[in-house]
C-alpha cells in the first residue's frame, strides 16, 4: 500500500485544517480515514482497540495539521502518527496485564476470504512481530523507516521481520496439511 505522492495542495489543505476550517478538516479526515483504520487494525489485535486508536490518530492528525511541512506525502506523515498511537495503545494493553490470549483463534477456520485468513494469521503474532510485518509488507516501508518508526535498530527490525515471517510460514504450511487432509486443497 504505497503512499500517494504529495502536492502543493496538500500543504494548503493542511494549513486550512490547522485553522479549523470544517471543510478542510472533513476532507483530510475522509481522505485518511481508510488508511488510518487499515493501519490501526493491522497493528492492533481487536476491533475495539483499533477503533479507539483510529479515532485518537485522526484527532491527533487534525490537531497537528499545522506541523505538516510537506517533506513527505500527507499519507506517510499521517502514518507516523498512527503507528505511534497504535504502539502506545498496545503498550497500555500490556501494562494493564491483558495479553493476546483472549483473542487467539484456532487456525482451523471456515472463511475462504483471503483478507479474513490473513487477519487470523496476523492476530496470532506478537505485537512487535505484527508491526514490522504490516509496515514492511502492507505499507512498503523500508527497514530503516520501520526502525525509525518503532524506535529500534535496523537489525532488530530485520530479526523481528524474519521471525514473524517464519511464524506465519509455519501456520501457512500447517494449514496446507489441513486442506490436504480435508480434500480442499489439490495437488499441483
Amino acid at each position: 500500500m504505497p503512499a500517494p505522492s504529495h502536492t502543493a495542495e496538500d500543504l494548503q489543505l493542511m494549513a486550512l485544517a490547522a485553522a479549523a476550517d470544517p471543510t478542510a478538516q472533513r476532507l483530510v479526515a475522509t481522505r485518511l480515514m481508510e488508511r488510518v483504520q487499515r493501519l490501526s487494525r493491522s497493528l492492533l489485535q481487536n476491533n475495539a482497540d483499533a477503533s479507539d486508536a483510529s479515532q485518537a490518530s485522526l484527532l491527533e492528525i487534525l490537531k497537528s495539521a499545522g506541523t505538516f511541512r510537506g517533506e513527505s506525502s500527507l499519507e506517510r506523515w499521517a502514518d507516523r502518527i498512527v503507528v505511534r498511537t497504535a504502539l502506545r495503545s498496545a503498550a497500555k494493553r500490556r501494562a494493564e496485564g491483558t495479553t493476546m490470549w483472549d483473542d487467539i483463534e484456532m487456525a482451523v477456520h471456515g472463511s475462504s476470504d483471503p483478507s479474513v485468513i490473513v487477519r487470523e494469521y496476523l492476530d496470532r503474532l506478537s505485537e512487535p512481530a505484527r508491526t514490522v510485518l504490516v509496515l514492511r509488507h502492507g505499507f512498503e516501508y523500508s527497514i530503516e523507516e520501520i526502525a525509525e518508526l518503532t524506535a529500534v535498530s535496523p537489525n532488530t527490525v530485520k530479526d523481528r521481520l524474519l521471525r514473524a515471517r517464519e511464524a506465519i510460514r509455519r501456520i501457512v504450511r500447517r494449514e496446507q496439511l489441513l486442506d490436504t487432509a480435508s480434500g480442499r486443497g489439490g495437488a499441483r
Partner: protein
Amino acid sequence: MRRAECQPWIDISDREAIGEIVTDEERRFQRTHEATCKSCADEAAVWRSLDGASLDSVLDEQILEQVLLAARAPRVEDAPSSIFRALPMRRRTVAGVVLGACALAAAIAVMARRPHVAVPTASIGEHFVAPAVAPPQTLPSGTPTLAPATETRIAAGTSPTCRMISPGATACLGAGSEVTTARLVSPRRVLDLVRGRVVVSLAPQTPGTSFGVATAAGTVTAVGTIFSVEIMANGDTMARCERGEVVVQPTGSGAEQRLLAGEQVRIGDAHAAAPLTQHDRRRDLALLTYREDRPAARGEKPSEIAEREERSSARNEKSAEPPRGSSEAARTASEPSPTAMTPVPTATPAPVAATAPPRAAEPGARAPARDLLGRARALRTQGAFREAADSYRAAYASDPHGAEGRTALVALGGLLLSELNDPAGALAAFDGYLNERKGVLAQEAEFGRIRALRALGRYESEKAAIQSFLVDHPEGPDAQVLRRRLESMGAK
C-alpha cells in the same frame, strides 16, 4: 513438497523481505518453484495479500463524525467515548462519576415514575440540535441519518436501518424492529422499543443527561456505552452490553442490576447476568455497522439480510439461555485426568442422528463426508454456527476414522468453543481426535483443548496440558502464547 526442498525459495524470499538484492535468475527460480510447490505458492500469496488485510467491523462513519466533533469540542465531556477513555485516569474518574450520577438519576426517575418533563437538548456540536425543533439534517453519504424532528416512530422494514437519534447517540434497528421517540427529550432521554432489536452507540453525554431504552419489561439506562435491547419472539426481553455499563431496571421493580461490558441478562429474570456470546456480540456490532447505502456486504439482497436476521433471532432464543447445561455440568464434575475425558460419541450422537442426511450414514461414504465438511464451512462463513456444527458432526459420523471425519472433529471443537459457548462439547471433540491417534491436526487439537479447559475453569488440567504441549511443540506462535499463559498461571 518437503520443507528442505523449499528452503532455497524461502531464503530468497526472506532476503528480499529484509531489503537485500534479489537477482533476475533468483526470481525466475522462485516463479518456477511456485508453479510446482503449493506451500510456497500459498506463502507467496499471503505476503501479497497482507496489503488487503484487516478492516472488518470498524465503525468508520461514526469515527469520522466523532473525530470531527471532537476536533471542534474543547471540553472533555464533548469528546467521543474512546478518546474520552484515553484521558488521564484522574479526569476519567471525575467524568465517570458524573456519568454514573446520570444513570443513577435516570434510574431514580424511573423508580419514582415521575412525569417526563421536556427540556431542550443541550447542543454539543453544530451538527446536532434539539429533536423537538430541528429541521432534518443533511449528512454526508454513508453516515447514519439524523431522525427527523417530528418523527415519533422509526420502523425498519425488511432491512436494518441506522439513525442518529440524538446528539452523540446512534440507534440501529434490526429488520422488522420498531421504536418510538416521543420520550427522546433531554435530560432523561428514553427510546421506547416496541418490537424487535435495537443496538445503541453513545458518545459520553452532556452532564446531567441520560439515555435509556424502555420496553414493557423494563428500562435499560446507559452509562456511555454500546448496548442492545431485544424483544424475543416469545416475549422475553434481552439486554446486552457490548461496551461500558448499563443499569437494567425491570418494570414495576425497584431492583436495579448493573450490566458490564460482555454481559447479557433477560430482563425480569432472577438469574445473574450471563456472558455475552461471540455470536450475539458480532450480531450486534454487525447491525451497528450496517450501512443502508451498502446493504449487500457479500452479495446479499435486503430480503436475504432480513431472512438471516430472522434466523439469527430464532437461534438467539436458544443461545440467550445462560449456558447452564454443558458448562455447569462440567464445573460440577470432578476433574478427570487429561486422558479420561468424555469420549466424543457420548457427547455428539443426538445432533448427528437429528441432522445427518441418510446417505451420510452409509459405510465408507467418503464423498458425503467431504461434502458435509464443505457445507459446514459454508454455513460457518454465513454465521449459521449451529447448522455448521450439525454438519461437522454429520461429517464425523459418516467417516469417523478418515481424514475428513477427523478434520471435522477438530473444526467442530473450534466452533463450539469460539461461537457456541460450549467448552465442554469442544473439549470432548478435541479429546475424541487426540484419543484415537495423533494426526496432522494434533497441534491444533491440543491447542484447542487447552482453550477449552481454560474456558471451563479447569486450572490444573489446563496447566498440565500446556506443559505437555510445550514439550511436544516447543516452537511457533502458539508456544509463545502458551508460555506467557503458563507464566501468568505460575504467578497466581
